[in-house]
C-alpha cells in the first residue's frame, strides 16, 4: 500500500458502509486503537540542522531507519530530539522521500556518498523516481567502470598466483603487456602480418624485364623468394592459431569468434594451394583463393584499438546502414525506370534496359558522373538533373548519420536497457507489494485464526505466531475481512486457487457414480449451510472411493476426509473453525499423499462426532487421525 494513501484509510473504512446492509454474516471486530496518541511533531537534528516533521510521515515506510523503532537508538534524552551525525544535504532528499513518496538524486552529489547515506537510512536506491533514475544509473556505471579499471591495472602489476600454464598463455595472448614474452610474440606476429601483406602487394608489381620476354610481375620473376616468404608467414600464422586454440578457455567459442575465422581464411589458401595439382581449370579457382590472403590485413585489428572500434561502430549501425541501403535502392530503381522510359525514344541510346540504367543512376546520384552514359532527350535531361540533385541529398546523409547514430544508438540502447530493467524491477516491486499486501492479509488471517483456535483448544505451549502488525495494517486487514464477510467468499492466493480448481475438477469425477455428490453446491445464503454442505458431500464420496480403489481407476483422486463435522457448535465459532479447518486441510493433504488406506466408514458418517478440529499443521496428535481419512487412490 502506498504510503501517502495510508492517510485515506479512514475514508476507505468508512466507505465500507455500503457493504454492511448487504452482508449476511456478522462483521469481525475492529482492531482496537491501542495507543491512540495524537500526531506529534518530531525533531530530527542532523549535524546541527534541525528538521521537523510529523511522526506519521516517517511511519509511512516502516522498513526504513526513520520509520521503524531503530531511530530510538538515536534519541537524545537531554534535548528530546533525534540526532544523526550525517550529511544534512543528503538528508534533505531522504526526508523529501518520506513526504512525497519520491526519491530524487541531486546531481551535485557524489554517487558513493549518496549510496552510503541511502544504505544508512535503509532506503533502496531502486525507488529513485524516473526523473533522476537515468542520471543515477549513469553515474553509478561510470563509477563502477572506474573502479574496475583501477582494479584491472592493479591486477596487471601483481602476479596472479597459481594460474595454469594454459591460462597464462591465454592471458599472454589477450594482454600483450603482461610479460615480455607476450610482448615479443605480439610484435613478431605484427611484423609478419605486415611482411605478408607487403609481399602480396609487391608480387603483382611489374618488376622490370627479363631479356627475351615481356614484362613480368615480381611474383613470377622471383617466385622462389616469394614462395619462401609466404611459407614463413603462413608457418608463423599457423603456429599462432594453434597456440591460441590450445590456450582458449572455451575452444568452441573461440572457433566461432570472428578473429579466428579471419585467421583461418587467411591461411587456408596456402594449404589449399599445396594440396592442389597444377590443373588448369582448378588453378583459376586457386587464383581467386589468393584474394583471400588480403584478409590477413584484418589480423591487425588485434593490434589496433581503432580498428576494433570501427568494426563495432559498423556493427551497431548495421540497421541504420541497412535502411539507408534500402532507401537508396528504392531511389535507384525509381530513377532508373524513369530514365529508361525517357530515353527509350532517342536513337542509339545507351539506356538499353532498366538494369543498364542502374549504372547511370548510381554514378549520377553519387555525383561521380563518369559520362559514359548521358541522357539526350529533354525529359531525360530533366529527370537526370532531378536525379543528381536528389542524389546529393541522399548520399550526403550517411556520414553524419553514422557518426551521430553511433553515439545515439549506443546511448539509447543503454538507456532502453536500463529503463527496461527498471521497469521490470518496478513492475515486480508493484506485484510484490500487491501480493505482499494480500499475502500479509492472508497470513495475518491465518495467524489470527490459528491463535484463536489454539486458544480454543487450550494448548498454551504453542507460541503465538502472530507478529505485531502496525495499526494501519490491522485496520486494513479488518477492512478486507469485512469485505469477505459481506460476500461470503474468502481471499486466497493463487496457488491455493489453482489447487482448489484442480481438486474440484477431480471431485467431479466421482460425481458420475454417486448422484448425491455434487461439486460445489454453490453459494448459499448463510455461512453455516455452506459449511454443512461441504461436509455432507464428503461421507458420500468415500463410498465411491472404496469402490474405485478396488477397481483401480485411471486417475488420482484426492479426497479430503478430514473435514470436521462440528455442526453442533455455535455459528460464530463455526466460522472460525471452518476457516482454519480448510486451510490446514490443504496442508495436511499434501503431507499424507503417500498413504493409501481404506477409510473406516463408521468413523465418518456420524455427523456429530466430537473430534477436535485439526487446527494447526504442527499439532502432531491430529495428524494420524487426519491421515487415516485422506484417501489417495492412484491407479496404474
Amino acid at each position, binding site marked *: 500500500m502506498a504510503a501517502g494513501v495510508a492517510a*485515506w484509510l479512514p475514508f476507505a473504512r468508512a466507505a465500507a458502509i455500503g457493504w*454492511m446492509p448487504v452482508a449476511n454474516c456478522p462483521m469481525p471486530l475492529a482492531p482496537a486503537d491501542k495507543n491512540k496518541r495524537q500526531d506529534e511533531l518530531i525533531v530530527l537534528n542532523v549535524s546541527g540542522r534541525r528538521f521537523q516533521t510529523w511522526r506519521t510521515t516517517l511511519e509511512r515506510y516502516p522498513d526504513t531507519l526513520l520509520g521503524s523503532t531503530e531511530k530510538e537508538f538515536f534519541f537524545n534524552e537531554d534535548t528530546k530530539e533525534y540526532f544523526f551525525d550525517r550529511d544534512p544535504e543528503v538528508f534533505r532528499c531522504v526526508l523529501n522521500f518520506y513526504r512525497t513518496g519520491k526519491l530524487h538524486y541531486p546531481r551535485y552529489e557524489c554517487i558513493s556518498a549518496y549510496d552510503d547515506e541511502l544504505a544508512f537510512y535503509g532506503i533502496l536506491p531502486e525507488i529513485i523516481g524516473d526523473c533522476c533514475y537515468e542520471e543515477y544509473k549513469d553515474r553509478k556505471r561510470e563509477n563502477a567502470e572506474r573502479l574496475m579499471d583501477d582494479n584491472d591495472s592493479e591486477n596487471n602489476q601483481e602476479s596472479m598466483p597459481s594460474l595454469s600454464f594454459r591460462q597464462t598463455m591465454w592471458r599472454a595472448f589477450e594482454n600483450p603487456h603482461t610479460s615480455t614474452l607476450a610482448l615479443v610474440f605480439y610484435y613478431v606476429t605484427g611484423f609478419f602480418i605486415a611482411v605478408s601483406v607487403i609481399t602480396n602487394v609487391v608480387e603483382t608489381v611489374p618488376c622490370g624485364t627479363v631479356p627475351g620476354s615481356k614484362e613480368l610481375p615480381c611474383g613470377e620473376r622471383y617466385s622462389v623468394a616469394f614462395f619462401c616468404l609466404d611459407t614463413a608467414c603462413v608457418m608463423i600464422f599457423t603456429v599462432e592459431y594453434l597456440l591460441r586454440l590450445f590456450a582458449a578457455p572455451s575452444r568452441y567459442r573461440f572457433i566461432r569468434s570472428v578473429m579466428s575465422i579471419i585467421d583461418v581464411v587467411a591461411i587456408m589458401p596456402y594449404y589449399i594451394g599445396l594440396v592442389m595439382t597444377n590443373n588448369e581449370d582448378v588453378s583459376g579457382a586457386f587464383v581467386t583463393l589468393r584474394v583471400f590472403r588480403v584478409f590477413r590485413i584484418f589480423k591487425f585489428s588485434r593490434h589496433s584499438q581503432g580498428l576494433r572500434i570501427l568494426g563495432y561502430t559498423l556493427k551497431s549501425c548495421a540497421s541504420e546502414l541497412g535502411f539507408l541501403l534500402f532507401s537508396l535502392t528504392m531511389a535507384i530503381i525509381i530513377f532508373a525506370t524513369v530514365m529508361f522510359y525517357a530515353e527509350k525514344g532517342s536513337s542509339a541510346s545507351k539506356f538499353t534496359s532498366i538494369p543498364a540504367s542502374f549504372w547511370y543512376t548510381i554514378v549520377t546520384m553519387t555525383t561521380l558522373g563518369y559520362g559514359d552514359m548521358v541522357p539526350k532527350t*529533354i525529359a531525360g535531361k530533366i529527370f537526370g538533373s532531378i536525379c543528381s540533385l536528389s542524389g546529393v541529398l541522399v548520399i550526403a546523409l550517411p556520414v553524419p548519420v553514422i557518426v551521430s547514430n553511433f553515439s545515439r544508438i549506443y546511448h539509447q540502447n543503454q538507456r532502453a536497457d536500463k529503463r527496461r530493467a527498471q521497469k521490470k524491477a518496478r513492475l515486480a516491486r508493484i506485484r510484490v507489494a500487491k501480493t505482499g499486501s494480500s499475502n500479509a492479509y492472508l497470513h495475518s488471517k491465518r495467524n489470527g485464526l490459528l491463535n484463536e483456535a489454539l486458544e480454543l483448544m487450550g494448548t498454551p505451549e504453542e507460541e503465538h505466531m502472530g507478529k505485531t502488525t502496525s495499526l494501519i495494517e490491522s485496520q486494513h486487514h479488518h477492512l478486507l475481512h469485512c469485505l469477505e464477510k459481506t460476500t461470503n467468499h474468502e481471499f486466497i492466493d493463487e496457488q491455493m486457487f489453482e489447487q482448489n480448481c484442480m481438486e474440484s475438477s477431480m471431485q467431479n469425477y466421482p460425481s458420475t457414480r454417486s448422484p448425491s455428490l455434487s461439486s460445489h453446491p454453490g453459494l448459499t445464503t448463510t455461512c453455516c449451510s455452506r459449511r454443512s454442505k461441504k461436509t455432507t458431500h464428503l461421507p458420500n464420496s468415500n463410498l465411491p472411493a472404496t469402490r474405485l480403489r478396488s477397481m483401480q481407476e485411471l486417475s488420482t483422486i484426492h479426497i479430503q476426509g478430514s473435514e470436521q463435522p462440528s455442526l453442533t457448535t455455535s455459528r460464530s465459532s463455526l466460522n472460525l473453525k471452518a476457516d482454519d479447518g480448510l486451510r490446514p486441510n490443504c496442508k495436511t493433504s499434501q503431507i499424507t499423499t503417500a498413504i493409501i488406506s481404506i477409510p473406516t466408514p463408521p468413523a465418518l458418517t456420524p455427523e456429530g462426532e466430537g473430534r477436535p478440529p485439526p487446527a494447526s499443521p504442527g499439532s502432531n496428535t491430529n495428524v494420524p487421525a487426519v491421515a487415516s481419512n485422506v484417501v489417495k487412490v492412484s491407479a496404474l
Partner: protein
Amino acid sequence: MNLEGLEMVAVLVVLALFVKVLEQFGLFEPVSLEDSVEDEFELSTVCHRPEGLEQLQEQTKFTRKELQVLYRGFKNECPSGIVNEENFKQIYSQFFPQGDSSTYATFLFNAFDTNHDGSVSFEDFVAGLSVILRGTTDDRLNWAFNLYDLNKDGCITKEEMLDIMKSIYDMMGKYTYPALREEAPREHVESFFQKMDRNKDGVVTIEEFIESCQKDENIMRSMQLFDNVI
C-alpha cells in the same frame, strides 16, 4: 507511355518544385488544414480552497484536530483541493490489490458528490465522512440507502442492487475461496430483497430499508463499527 506524355509529366514536376521554392520565399501561403488546438484546461489547474475550519466544525461533527488530520491527508493526495473521478478510483484501488474496485468507487464518488458537479471537494468529503463516522445509525442507514439508490429516485430496484452487488464482488478479484460463480451476485440480491422488501413489490423504499435493517441484529452491530474509525 509515349514521349510527349513523359515530357508533360516532367514539366509538371518542374512546376511543382518551383511552387515549393516560392513557398519558401513566403509568396505562397500554405493552406492550413487544422486550427491550432488550444490547450485543454485541466481540472487540476483549478485550485479549490475549503471553507474555514470554524465553519466546517459547525457543519460536521469532527473536532478541530480531526479536521486538520483529514485535510492534511486529503491535500497530500489532491493538491488542487478537489478529487475527480479518476483520482478517486485510483486512490480507492490501492486498498484492494486483488480485485477491481473501480465500479464501486464510481458509486461511492456519486454518493459523496452531493451537488453532482463531477468533483468532490473537501467539504463534500468531510460531510460524507461525518455522516458515516459520527452520525446516528439512522443517518448511516440513510447514507447507505443513498449509495444504493443509483438514480436517486427514492427506491432501490433489483437492477440497481445487482449493479452494486456486482461491483462489490468485483473487488474480491479472481482468487477467492470458494471460486466465484456468475450467479453469486444475483443470488445475493435475491436474498437481500427477500429480507428487505416487505410488500414484495420488487423495489425497496427507504422506509422498508430502515425498518428491515433495524430489525436485523447483525446490521445494527456492524453499524457500530464505524464509531472508532477515526
